[in-house]
């Protein structure tokens, strides 16, 4: 260590990237551990999973009154955390968009529900549960929405094959 030499290393504090917009800036300054980045000119917040709902509440307080959409991406083995949950927020008063992204692990993926903050996230989260099997803690009615109730598996996962449903054609054994 540097103490032996009698000198103290300068601790290099890397400047944290923050958005220029004042509303977004004050929102990001509240949270130390949330990373802001620009993706094709759109503001994206990478949120740790534990602070998902907390960040959502602050975002709503900052003026993002609409949760436009909640969706997910299945990264299979390409990333350490398999699922990525994406929520698109919209602020009508400030004419701003913000995308918040968090990750969920392979085994029993689960994040906090945004329905207590934005009731409009209800159907979207049900769709994510239906399609990816990601559960949302605190969701009032987390049931399948598009697939039949007795469906097995979650279709939009990458390990869910396409065209493997047996059909009653003559030579159906050739397909499968």
């Amino acid at each position: 260590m540097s103490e032996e030499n009698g000198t103290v290393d300068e601790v290099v504090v890397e400047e944290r990237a923050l958005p220029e917009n004042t509303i977004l800036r004050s929102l990001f300054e509240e949270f130390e551990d949330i990373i802001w980045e620009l993706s094709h000119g759109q503001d994206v917040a990478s949120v740790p999973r534990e602070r998902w709902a907390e960040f959502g509440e602050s975002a709503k307080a900052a003026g993002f009154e609409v949760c436009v959409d909640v969706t997910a991406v299945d990264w299979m083995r390409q990333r350490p955390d398999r699922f990525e949950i994406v929520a698109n927020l919209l602020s009508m008063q400030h004419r701003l968009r913000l995308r918040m992204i968090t990750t969920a692990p392979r085994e029993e993926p689960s994040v906090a529900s945004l329905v207590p903050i934005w009731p409009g996230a209800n159907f979207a989260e049900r769709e994510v549960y239906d399609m990816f099997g990601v559960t949302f803690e605190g969701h009032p009615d987390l049931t399948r929405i598009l697939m039949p109730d007795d469906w097995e598996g979650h279709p939009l996962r990458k390990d869910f094959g396409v065209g493997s449903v047996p059909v009653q054609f003559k030579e159906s054994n050739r397909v499968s």
Partner: protein
Amino acid sequence: MSDDTKTRDTLDVWVAGTEEPQFTPTDEGAQEMALHETESRLDEELGRVVDDDYLFEDVIDEDERMILNMGPQHPSTHGVLRLQIELEGEIIRRTKPIIGYLHTGMEKTAEQLNFSQGGTNVTRMDYLAPFHNELAYSLAVEKLLGMEVPPRAMAIRILLTELNRCSSHLVALATNGMDIGAISMMIYGFREREQILAFFEKTTGLRMNHNFIRPGGVAADLPPGWKDDVADIIEQLPKRLKQYDDLLENNPIWLSRTRHVGVISAQEATAYGITGPALRAAGVDWDLRKAFPYSGIEQYEFEVPLGENGDVYDRYRVRVDEIMQSLHIAEQVMDSMPKGDYRVDDRKITPPPRARIDESMEALIHHFKLFTEGFKVPPGETYVAVESPRGELGCYLVSDGQASPYRMHTRAPSFANLQALPIAMADSLMADTVATIASMDPVMGDVDR
């Protein structure tokens, strides 16, 4: 014995025919009030006091609640929407929309198709507004490619999407009218829509599911004589809309069945993520064409029509006014149509012209590679939204550098708007159900995808 028997008077024992006839002195001609009648009851019967008999004050027993299943095969659910309605007498207490009957896994299909084939997939989602689906998808792909399309392509896109908004709203007006009982509206709306679809067919070759707006521009240039067709639409449609107003604006049945029915307030609309005419009918000035302009729509002049009460009538009114504004935009596009190419001059994205294939080996190779492998899109993710006739239509696109999307998600406006149906229908009459559904204008292909 008790005291009663002691004090009983002999006169109390009634003997038939012994009583004195009793008459109350009345005004001449006036009728005596029946014994069980009271003044307040008389007021009710004569209509001086109107009591809304459907407003229950008391708590209703669980046994008196009835669950009614509506759909998925019901003509006024606009497809395969199913509703479970909990009724108390004639009043709806709770509603649960059950969807998924038209789910065809289009988001999964999109992962199998390459970027240039994706248009054929997304155009089938919201089948009443196919151009908007194609536009949202194409804009997302172009954003990932970091590409700008030529001005003529942008103008053609605006022209087609705005005319598409007219045709979609005409279907909404037509079905809204028919559901309430104005059968003529059904005929009128579809008659006018036919004129627009004929123009689409002339331009793209198909009446619906065009796959005309593609990543990199549009599939072909506008056909010869397109200006006459558009001018004809712009001239005819306002006259026809005037006929709708003559039919409906002073029609007491129409007004009483639409005013203060299916109300969604501005707060509810924002909380539930409702967009489009249903949001603007609640008085919220929000239009993506103004807020986040796309495809060069900011250079055209138009207004955003707003409602006040957020009821069925206001949604109808907003749609009629939006048709007028869309025609206004179409007129400006027609007058200022830029010259030039209708797609980007990038052979890695758009196929070469047919004539070049015969004379150039490179053109042949490009053509072959584009239609077998497709073009690759750099890794990244983006969200692009356009204002479809039903609200914010978004496309969330993730690419991992391959020729097909890693993930394509469509933020369907009908899907989000359907969440508000239980809110709009709560504590309203059963008879208003179809009016409310029709005014939300859900397209089940868009809901289930």
